[in-house]
């Protein structure tokens, strides 16, 4: 198990180094000068030069890459060009929105998908299965921002149960915070739940045909007991993979949902920073997201090994 974990850890480290080089190169190559973006069309050449020097944009690219990486290693992500506040502070603030939102959405999607998937698998081909499958088909086909707009239309504009967007902040209480994240979390969760339910169902159906399931029934377990004790656990591997991918997606991919609900999350930060050419923010946030994705994958790999002992020997 340890060997397996160590191997995974080394590949994690290499991925991070490669990612940092690629991110830095791609973002620095994009046209657009942060200083002239900030000072606009009437800026004079000497003013621009003064600002570039102030931002540390006058050094060589290689120098700046190493400054960036060495800073990150000690937790210093630099200072935002536009906001002039430490990037680590900005990321931490936004994290308090994005992370709970991702977890909230993931919890919702799991809570919906597991029962739905198991129910459909247990009733394969019957009307219950067809209904669930039809609903998930719809869930996959409809984009989440459309869901978002429908939710706003119904629950914010018509019923006034929720505000149309914005984030009240956690200092006003956990309930208030969760309340303002509810519509976005639902909008994010529904399409994910649809995918997850389908994976759960097909994975469970595969398992149900396995020899050990027949053995389980033969030793006297009821259908239900066999399903819960041996079926679900074995069906979890592909489901875990999907959950891992979904979490990364929810953390990084909620840009559109954050726009629709004007939430001050990571996605919107990146979006703003890209158009403002706040390169240091873009680089650091993207790097952080890469780190999160790779780490989640690493944890998922470990979780496989936990669920399936055979994987511990291999790798």
């Amino acid at each position, binding site marked *: 198990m340890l060997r397996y974990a160590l191997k995974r850890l080394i590949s994690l480290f290499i991925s991070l180094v490669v990612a940092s080089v690629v991110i830095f190169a791609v973002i620095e190559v994009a*046209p*657009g*000068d*942060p200083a*002239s*973006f*900030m*000072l*606009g*069309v*009437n*800026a*004079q050449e*000497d*003013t621009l030069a*003064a*600002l570039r020097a*102030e931002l540390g944009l006058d050094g060589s690219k290689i120098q700046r890459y190493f400054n960036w990486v060495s800073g990150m290693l000690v937790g210093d992500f630099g200072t935002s060009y*536009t*906001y*002039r*506040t430490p990037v680590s502070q*900005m990321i931490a*603030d*936004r994290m308090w*929105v994005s992370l709970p939102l991702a977890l909230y959405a993931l919890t919702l999607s799991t809570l919906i998908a597991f029962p739905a998937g198991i129910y459909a698998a247990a009733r394969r081909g019957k009307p219950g299965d067809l209904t669930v499958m039809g609903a998930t088909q719809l869930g996959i086909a409809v984009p989440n921002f459309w869901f978002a*707009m429908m939710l*706003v*239309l119904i629950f*914010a*504009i018509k019923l*006034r149960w929720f*505000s*149309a*967007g*914005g*984030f009240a*902040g956690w200092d006003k209480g956990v309930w208030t915070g969760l309340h303002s994240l509810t519509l976005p979390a639902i909008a994010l969760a529904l399409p994910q739940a649809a995918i997850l339910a389908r994976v759960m169902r097909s994975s469970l159906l595969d398992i149900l045909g396995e020899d050990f399931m027949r053995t389980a029934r033969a030793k006297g377990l009821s259908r239900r007991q066999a399903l819960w004790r041996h079926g679900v656990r074995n069906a979890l591997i592909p489901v875990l993979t999907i959950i891992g991918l979904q979490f990364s997606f929810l953390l990084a991919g909620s840009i559109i949902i954050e*726009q*629709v*609900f*004007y*939430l*001050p*999350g990571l996605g*919107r*930060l990146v979006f*703003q920073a890209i*158009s*403002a*050419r706040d390169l240091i923010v873009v680089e650091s946030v993207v790097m952080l997201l890469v780190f999160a994705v790779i780490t989640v994958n690493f944890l998922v790999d470990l979780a496989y090994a936990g669920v399936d002992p055979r994987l511990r020997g291999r790798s």
Partner: protein
Amino acid sequence: MTKQMFRTFVSGLAVGASLFATQALAKSDITIAMQLEPPHLDPTSAAAQAIDSVVYTNIFEGLTRFMGDGSVVPGLAESWEISEDGTVYTFKLREGVTFHDATVMDAEDVKFSLDRAMAEDSANAQKALFAGIESVEVVDPLTVKVTLSEPNGNFLFNMAWGDAVIVAPESIDNIKTNPVGTGAFTFGDWVQGDSITLNRYPSYWGDQPALETATFKFISDPTAAFAAMMAEDVDVFDNFPAPENLPQFEADPRFQVLVGSTEGETILSTNNKKPPFDDIRVRQALAHAIDRQAVIDGAMFGYGTPIGTHFAPHNPAYVDLTGNSAHDPEEAAKLLADAGYEEGFETTLHLPPPSYARRGGEIIAAQLADVGIKAEIINVEWAQWLESVFKGKDYGLTIISHTEPMDIGIYARPDYYFQYDSLDAQTLMETLNATTDPDERKKLLGDMQRLIATDYVNGYLFQLAKLGVAKVGVQGLWENAPTAAIDLTQISWAE
């Protein structure tokens, strides 16, 4: 529940409701939405208009200030004297003005602010406003003498800009995140990505504003803007991003729609040095090929005023020159033929993100195609636009709204991105700058407008409208936008 209990309960509800009603009468807070979030809160070191929208006249004040109608009135300077030759301005400052940190605002602060803006390492985005200042002297704590190298009829106007507000040396280091000014509102809180809150400043030198607190919320997505307004999450949307939704607000008794004008001359900027646009006949053909009203209707849903020169129609000095570039495709085709382009030609049309450009660009490209000009549309982000179009001058045509007030002076800068190099324009602007007599200035401004219109420097499209949406009951909002500002001191709730 007995009848008695029910009655008590109902009357309790009624009392509660009437209490609530009295509270509603005294409503002194407001939530104002804007599309863009300011990057920081120092108006003297960035071009972002969102900064001025939040801080101008609310947190920071200058020697002079703009009013909602575009006039320039005394701000922190109570009065001033101008020397005979127009080069020395002696400002008398108001007494009893304090910064929000309780330090006194005096002549030293004015000197500090102006010197800082002019300094070598200054990051002021409008450094040109201060270019003519030779020296700033403190005469006594309430008197400042500003000497110009040559007379400048625009000087008092220049000092009203958000880039020329008075700041204090004591608080300058943290101005970007904790702005300390002399205005009627103090900086309260900033939840980055979400909102900024300002609170009334009890020791303000002028009249106390009606509002106690104001919250600015940042909603960039047009659909979200519509939802926030409809759900009444916000009271005012400063400049509503989706003109197509306005009829819906107009029809809704809960809302009022304020249609005004901005200082934004929206133009089809033309690279005057790049062939074939170096030929005036080609530029004239462009002007006649464009149907302004179709662009306004299609891109702005009818909001906007056609212009025929680079000047705001609401300005008293405006000359209506739209007839000079009237829509006439036949004339355009003829001019192109004269210039040797019977078959038309190909060029590029760079479009920055705002909808006036993206939507307007599609329509204009179609109109140009009708006279044989094939404009390839290239969508760019702002940063790219600045880099390649504005700085690199690597473009044929582009659409942009020039939002700086009174910016006709850019036509006297041959290195400006549309590369119009005209000695006539340059001498005219020099004369104008040196003229202080209002009537004479008006005449010169008229001459300048005519010159750039008949030289067909750019395709003049329309004056960008300011589209405000507010709940019924909100009073004192600026209808026009002579500068980027949301003047909270004038805003109140109707009783």
